């Protein structure tokens, strides 16, 4: 360590500071004490000198009273000589009241500094004796002169006062002379020199003693302090288990004790804090979990977390509601069991695909258990290291959406249909006109031919009878005679059918023009229809049954149109029968609760496939196009029933037969 570093270190050291302070204090105290001591001693000595001088001067003044009074110079000299024998006295002089020097004694023959002028002496003698009672002092560099007046009591004029013991008043004093005692300061100076020497020795001694003592004391103070500091530093760096040895019972010991207590408290606090933090973390975790679960449960989609083994880890409230299962029950169960009621995963399960490729997958389901459609998204759930740990299985109920979509599609189809119909109507209108004219011509011609045949028949019969049988039109007349009317009837019938079709087409196109205000008896409708179709019925079945209610309610509408519908339905039923053993049943009902009159046409024929059933009312859709079906029958029937604010429904199973139901609101 370089000297400047040591200096810096020392400057910053507490011990060095304290030591400097102590040393400074000791030095200051020692110096002060020494100075005080020397000053005090020299002052004391000076005071002693002064009191000695005063005493000597006073004594001499007192002793000189009688000699001065009696002007006995010998006595005075002896008295002065006696005083001169004292150590410090260098000169003694006695003056009379007129300033005349009565005697003077100088030690060692020295004249001393006795040249005080006569005037000065007189001044001192002339001063108020009351104030002069104590000796006055004149100090020079080398000596001190003491002047003490020689006081005499004033002779009382009253002789009687000689008797009285009362003391005379101070004014009754008078000065009869002056004593001067000169004391040298040589001893004082010597004394001060000695004192300074002793003081310096003591100063050095006490200074060394003090410094050594202070150093040891400080060592005693700072060593425990250093250990305390070490402890504090260790605690500061986080070692709360640090304890400091308690070495002394003083303040530092108390600090050490307090420090240890503090460290203990800190340690305990730290532990408590850690515990509290743990609790807080747990609480936060719990809160976060609860919040997450709340969020999880708030989602209306069906959300489930599923592990790699397709076991449910967690489900949300929506799933619990929909599948009537508690969350706790669901946990650990297989998803396919809970969601689909199956013992193994369904083939189209998107999670299986995800388990294969680890990607997100989507699929649409129809869940028959819930009669709902779902759009399911399976998102992979990964650990922080990216390993797949399961999936988030979100299913959205799209039943409503799908329904809406279907309706949208139906509306679109209807729109297309309407467009088609409109075009068809235009075409039909044109075609009807174009077909009607030749048809009328055919019909008329057939009628004319029938008339001709009727008129020819007697002639031909005549000829037959006459000539025998003959060939006509490639056939024998006898056969022809039988078949010709039928042929003619066939022409007429076909023409009539064309006419009917045209008429129907016209009606279909120009529907609404019919009179809808009639009171229609459904029983009658059914009866008429059955009678009209009696030939066809005979042709198709042996089991045709009418089951009419006794009093059928009237419905408002057009009887012809309704007849057309019923005929159509009976015709369809007959045509669906594979053989004559199969039956057709027409019944009328009154559903009072719904306020509906019901006409049911049932057969146990071939029934319809779903495909056919879905397209029943589509114009020109027919399963019997090869048998002469136009594909318009049910389309028209449906329109007619709807015009009557009713419903036409079908219930059909392939092989099981079909039931057509017309529901009409009762007036």
């Amino acid at each position, binding site marked *: 360590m370089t000297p400047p570093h040591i200096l810096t270190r020392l400057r910053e050291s507490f011990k060095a500071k304290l030591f400097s302070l102590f040393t400074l204090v000791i030095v200051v105290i020692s110096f002060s004490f020494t100075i005080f001591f020397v000053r005090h001693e020299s002052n004391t000595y000076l005071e002693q000198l002064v009191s000695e001088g005063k005493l000597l001067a006073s004594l001499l003044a007192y002793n000189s*009273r*009688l000699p001065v*009074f*009696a*002007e*006995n110079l010998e006595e005075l000299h002896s008295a002065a000589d006696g005083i001169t024998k004292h150590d410090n006295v260098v000169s003694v002089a006695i003056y009379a009241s007129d300033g005349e020097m009565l005697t003077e004694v100088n030690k060692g023959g020295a004249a001393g500094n006795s040249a005080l002028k006569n005037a000065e002496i007189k001044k001192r003698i002339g001063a108020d004796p009351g104030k002069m009672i104590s000796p006055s002092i004149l100090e020079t560099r080398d000596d001190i002169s003491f002047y003490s007046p020689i006081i*005499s*009591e004033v*002779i*009382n*004029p*009253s*002789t*009687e006062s*000689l*008797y*009285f*013991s*009362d003391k005379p008043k101070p004014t009754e004093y008078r000065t009869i002379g002056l004593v001067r005692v000169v004391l040298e300061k040589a001893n004082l100076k010597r004394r001060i020199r000695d004192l300074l020497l002793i003081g310096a020795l003591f100063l050095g001694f006490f200074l060394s003693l003090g410094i050594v003592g202070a150093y040891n004391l400080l060592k005693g103070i700072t060593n425990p302090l250093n250990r305390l500091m070490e402890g504090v530093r260790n605690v500061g760096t986080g070692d709360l288990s640090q304890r400091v040895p308690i070495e002394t019972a003083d303040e530092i010991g108390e600090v050490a004790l307090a420090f240890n207590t503090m460290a203990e408290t800190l340690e305990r606090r730290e532990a408590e804090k850690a515990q509290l933090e743990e609790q807080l973390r747990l609480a936060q975790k719990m809160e976060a979990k609860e919040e997450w679960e709340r969020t999880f449960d708030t989602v209306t989609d069906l959300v489930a977390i599923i592990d790699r083994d397709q076991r449910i880890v967690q489900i949300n409230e929506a799933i619990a509601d929909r599948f009537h299962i508690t969350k706790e029950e669901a946990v650990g169960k297989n998803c396919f069991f809970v969601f689909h009621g199956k013992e193994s995963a369904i083939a189209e399960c998107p999670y299986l695909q995800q388990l294969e490729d680890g990607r997100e997958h989507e699929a649409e389901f129809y869940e028959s258990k819930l009669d709902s459609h779902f759009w399911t998204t399976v998102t992979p759930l990964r650990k922080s290291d990216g390993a797949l740990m399961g999936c988030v299985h979100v299913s959205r109920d799209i039943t409503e959406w799908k329904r809406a979509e279907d309706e949208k599609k139906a509306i679109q189809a209807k729109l297309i249909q309407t467009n088609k119909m409109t075009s068809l109507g235009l075409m039909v209108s044109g075609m009807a006109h174009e077909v009607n004219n030749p048809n009328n011509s055919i019909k008329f011609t057939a009628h004319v031919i029938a008339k001709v045949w009727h008129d020819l028949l007697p002639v031909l019969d005549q000829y037959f009878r006459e000539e025998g049988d003959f060939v006509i039109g490639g056939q024998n007349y006898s056969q022809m005679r039988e078949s010709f009317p039928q042929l003619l009837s066939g022409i007429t019938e076909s023409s009539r059918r064309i006419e009917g079709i045209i008429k129907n087409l016209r009606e279909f196109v120009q529907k609404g023009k019919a009179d809808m205000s009639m009171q229609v008896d459904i029983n009658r409708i059914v009866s008429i229809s059955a009678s009209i179709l009696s030939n066809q019925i005979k042709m198709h079945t042996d089991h045709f049954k009418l089951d009419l209610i006794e009093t059928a309610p009237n419905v408002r509408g057009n009887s012809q149109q309704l007849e057309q519908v019923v005929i159509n339905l009976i015709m369809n039923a007959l045509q669906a029968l594979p053989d004559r053993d199969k039956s057709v049943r027409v019944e009328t009902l009154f559903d009072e609760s719904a306020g509906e009159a019901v006409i049911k046409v049932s057969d146990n024929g071939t029934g319809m496939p779903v495909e056919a059933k879905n397209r029943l009312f589509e114009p020109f859709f027919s399963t019997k196009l090869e048998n002469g079906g136009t594909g318009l029958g049910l389309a028209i029937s449906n329109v007619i029933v709807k015009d009557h604010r009713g419903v036409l429904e079908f219930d059909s199973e392939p092989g099981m037969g079909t039931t057509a139901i017309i529901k009409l609101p009762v007036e």
Partner: protein
Amino acid sequence: MRTLFLTFLISLLFAAANAFASDVLVIQSLHVKPFDDALRGFRNVCKSDTKTVVIADAAGADMVRLVREERPRLILAIGADALKSVKRIRDIPIVYMMVLNPEKIMGDAKNVSGVDMNIPPSKYLSLMESLRLPKMRVGILYDPAQSGGFVKKIQQTARSRGIEITAREVHNPKEVPEILAGMKGSFNLFWMLPDSTVVTPETFEFLLLFTQQNRTPVVTFAGKYVDTGALVSLDIDGLDLGKQAGEMANRVLDGTRVSDIPCAEARKSVIKINRKVASKLGINLAGLENF
């Protein structure tokens, strides 16, 4: 100014008291115990109305005028100053006491009588004799101007008793040490007289030192000197002195002409002995017991 005011005040006081003029006007020099004792003794005996004026308190007051206004039947003067203040009064009888040498003040005035402070020399000499000193020789210093008369009386009395007296005149206190030194060996008892030339603080001290050095006992006139080193004192009794003067006053007030009443010496005295001094000087006090 102050004097004028006091005079006026006192005049006023006595003018008012005129109608009830007192029988005795007491004029006292100053307030000291012997004077107060004397006055008390006087009052014990003389029951007449008294009025007291202390000169020291009424500094500068004209006593003659006061007396004129007061017109007492008798004036009692206590102390030399008191007597001096009324020495011009000749028509009112004056009785004095506590005055050392009244004749020096009053001369031959006829209206004056009183009790002297001096104790008769015979009493002193008897006391000295009772000390039983072998070959007693008495030394005396005196100022003839002050104590000349008294010393004559002493010498006469001593002569009649056969006692040797060595008396030296002193005219200035400064002479005392020298004269006394010159008298060394001529006496073995020093009689200190109430003489203010001889007795000053310095001379008393010198005297005591001298007598102690020469182992000479001192007989003095006041107790206070016994305290400071004299052997014995023969002092007046202030109370009795007052009584003596009171009796004198009664006679005057009863009609006796004051001129018919002679001045008297103090009839009672008080002895005070310093036994320590006595033992140091080896003096047997047995004779004194019977004195």
